[in-house]
Each structure stands twice: as C-alpha cells, then as structure tokens.
C-alpha cells in the first residue's frame, strides 16, 4: 500500500468499483419464479429447507419489477410466450435469465417435432444466460446454474463496455 498504509482507519477498504458492484449484484439476486410446469415444483423444493437457495443470497420474487433474474421453469406454449416476453421487459436492468429444464432449453419432450403448441426453447423469445439441463433438473443442478450465473456476473464490466456488452447492448443486456 505504500504511503496509504496506516493513513486510514481499518474500516476503510479499497476495491475496484467493478468488483464492489458485482459483489453486491451476485450475492443479492431476486429471482422471478416463472413456474410454468413440472420444473416449477422442483424450483419450489429448492426454496425449501433441504436445498435452501437463500444460502446463495437468492430470494424468490413474484413481481418482475423487483427481480434481477427470471428462472423459466417449464414448457412455454405459444399462448404463454408473449406473457413471458412482457414480464421480461418489465424487469429492471441488469436482468438475467436462467432456463431450467429441457422444455425451456429446447422444447424437450414437447419440441416442435412432437407438440404443436409448445415453443422450442425460451431462447427464441428472450436472451438466456444459463441453461440447466434435465427433465426436471435436480435441485442441485439448479443451484449449480445459479452459481454459474454468479460467476458470470462477477466477470462483468460495469463501467467499461466489454465484448459481451457490445454484442448484447449496454449493461450486458439487449
């Protein structure tokens, strides 16, 4: 620290602004529970005592206006598709999407080859940050998906536009 050493009391901490903001963002994720089908039950179980997603600082939200992350859990039908897009647009920046389960990843059992009424993946509607495979995924898999997202947030540049922000627009989102 050189000349700064002992110049400040011990409760003064030096950090990079990027790191400080990302630290706050990744450890206080409010997720919007988009429980559409079977995966929604596993998402509820994750909030329960055994898996306890709140250990990772993530807490369930029912309003899109208070959410940072949308966990899309279940089959997206054509009727529901516009609603998902609408709810995503209501979320404030920075916003992330976690696609949970085969149906919202790619259609899964209900992809276009099989079902006439299901959209083959939520990435057709909104940009997705993390895909969690499984039908339905185990709760551990969802937790892993959340940790993956947290690592991704940790690597974001807040003040400088990095490659990702150029591709996806300012703030890392389109």
């Amino acid at each position, binding site marked *: 620290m050189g000349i700064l050493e002992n110049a400040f009391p011990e409760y003064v901490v030096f950090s990079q602004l990027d790191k400080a903001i990302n630290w706050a963002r990744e450890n206080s994720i409010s997720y919007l529970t988009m429980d559409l*089908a079977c995966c929604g039950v596993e998402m*509820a179980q994750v909030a329960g005592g055994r898996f306890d997603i709140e250990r990772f600082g993530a807490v369930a939200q029912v309003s899109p206006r208070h959410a940072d992350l949308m966990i899309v859990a279940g089959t997206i*039908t054509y009727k529901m598709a516009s*609603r998902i897009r609408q*709810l995503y647009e209501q979320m404030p920046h920075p916003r992330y999407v976690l696609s949970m389960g085969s149906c919202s990843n790619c259609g899964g*059992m*209900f992809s276009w080859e099989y079902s006439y009424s299901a959209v083959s993946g939520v990435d057709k509607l909104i940009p997705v940050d993390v895909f969690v495979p499984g039908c339905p995924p185990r709760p551990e898999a969802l937790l892993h998906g959340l940790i993956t997202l947290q690592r991704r947030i940790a690597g974001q540049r807040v003040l400088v536009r990095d490659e990702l922000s150029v591709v996806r627009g300012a703030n890392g989102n389109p």
Partner: protein
Amino acid sequence: MTSFDNAQTLTFNVGPHHSAAIGPLRMKVRTDGEMVVSCEPDVGYLHRGIEKLAERMTWTGFMPYTDRVDYLSAIHCNLAYALAVESLAGIAVPERAQTIRVLVGELNRLGSHLLAVGHLANQLGAETALMYALRDRERINNLFEMLCGARLTYSYVRIGGVAADVTEGFIEKTYEFVEYLMPKLKEYHDLLSNNRVFMGRLAHVGVISPATAIDCGLTGPTLRASGVKYDTRKMQPYSGYQKFDFDVPVGKGEVGAVGDAFDRYIVRMRELEQAVSIIKQALDALPEGQFSTALPRLFKAPKGEAYAAVESPRGTLGVYVSSSGEKNPARVKFRTPSFAALNLFPDLFKNIPLSDVGTIVGSLDIMVSEVDR
C-alpha cells in the same frame, strides 16, 4: 388488461403469472371496490397437446408423457393409463405389482396433499407451513428416488406391472417415513387447524353445496368436503383397493358451513392419515411374486376402446383409450378433476372480497397442467 368498464367496476387479470394456482392460470376478475363481481377463468396457457402426442407414440412409449399430465401425482396418471390399456388388452397384473401400485399411489397422494395444504397456507401468508410441507415432501421424493431414480416424474407404473421391484431398503425406509410423518401431522394441526386466524380466513369462504358440486362434476376431496361420500377407490375399486381398510373423510362444517374452504383443507388432512394407514397395510401385506408381466417387444393393443378411472389426489382421473390395432393409440383422452373445478368459478366468485380469491383457488387445489394437458 386493466380497464374501467364504467364508473363502478374494474376488470383486471389475476395471472397467468400468479401464485394462486400451481401453474399458469388466468382469471379475469371484475371488481366493485373490494368485492368481486364476477370471475372468468382463461385456460390454455399450459396446453401442450399431450393427448395428440399419444397418437404418435407407441403404447408403452407414451408413459413418460402421462407423468406430465399431473406432475404432482404422476403415479396416478401412469396408473390410470396403464389400467386402461391393460383392460383393453386383457393383461393380468400380478398381485405383488397391484399392491406396489397402491403403495406408491398413496405415497404420491401424501406428497400432493402436503403441497396442497402448504400452498393454501402460503396463500394466506403462513409461509412456515409451506416450508414444513416442502421438508416432508423431500423425504417422499427421496423414497421415490430410491425406487425409480426420479424425484417428480416417475414413470414407475408400467403396462403390466411396475418398472422395478421394491427393495428391502425401500420397505425399511418407508416404514421409517410413516413413523416420522404421524407426529408431524400433529404439528400441522397445531400450526393450522387449531389456529384462530387460519380458521377465520377459511370458514364460510367459498361454500360449495353438494348439488352444485355434483352438477359441476367435482370429484375428490373437493366433492367430499361438500358432504358427498364418493371415492373411486370405494365405488369402483381398482388395483386391489377392496382389500384395504380405510375411511373416506367427508366435510362436516366443523368451523363454518359444510363445503367451505376449511372443510376442503381438513378433508385433505384427514386423507393424509388414511393414506399413511393404507401404506402401512400395503407394506405389511406385500405378497410374494412377480412385479410385472412380460410384454411383447412391440406391444400392440387389440382393436377396441377402454376407460379406466383412478382416485388421484384431486379427484377422479379417467383415461379413455381407443385402439385400431396399431402399435400406437388411435386416441387417448384424459378426464381430469381440476378441469371440472373450473366450472365452479362463475358461481363461486360472486360477492366475495378480493382477498378470498387466493384462498378459494388454493383450497380447490387446481393443477393447471391437468386442466390444459
């Protein structure tokens, strides 16, 4: 969209993204101040075309899709479909397989009712009860995982029997679980059934008369809460239910009127006790023998049609299958209990406070995947 129809009423949407029902259910609610004037359900947000998909699948290959018809009681959907195909093809199911089916069916009923009760409590703001329910469900999920490897969508019941035999370890753990659950049920009663606030929120709310219930085609706990003693397990016993000794709890209007939301809640709680008793009987009397009948590699059901019904946690779940003698079904139709419950909506949501909407939907235990298929 939110709109003022005239100076008096306001129409707005509850859902499709709302926590009242399990899944995306939309209700168009018209209110006059705090009072609900009318309510119209809008279904189809989870219509996945499962019935149509059956026509492209083989008879046996369709089984995983039946899981997704009602994912909280996947075993019952498996069973209804298996029973229908078995009665069409004249397949005899071994005794052991039948008892295993009863055993896993009741385990599944425990899981579903626990979530229904927890969900209803959560609607009223009692989040602790939901956490308790999730905690106990986790043990049921573990048991199923031990049995068939899946936590939610089991595909365990197959045409001709079940997928795998129960193991010694499973039987031991299930005994342990029922011993664990009985004292826990008292915990729920202490937390909810004897709670003045909980009673106050549920008594006299959403009263369904027996006549209306029958007219709307209600089945299951919702019908029994209105005082009608109808249970498919007793009326048309399947899978050897006639050998089991259990009661059918009915609503008596303990704190309010007969057929109110509290009755629906308490009937589910009593059914939990009955399910535990059936599980114990099934474990004690598990016959020796085979767990499945061998099917030909390419199974083809003979020409004809068949219908089978089971008592799922939400009511009578019927499956109608029609065969043209091919390797895939000509038509599969599900008769689902939650869809019948939606018939009630226009009558039930009249002159009630807005705060009761969540209570009533929660107490009806509507499963949207089952409504839409």
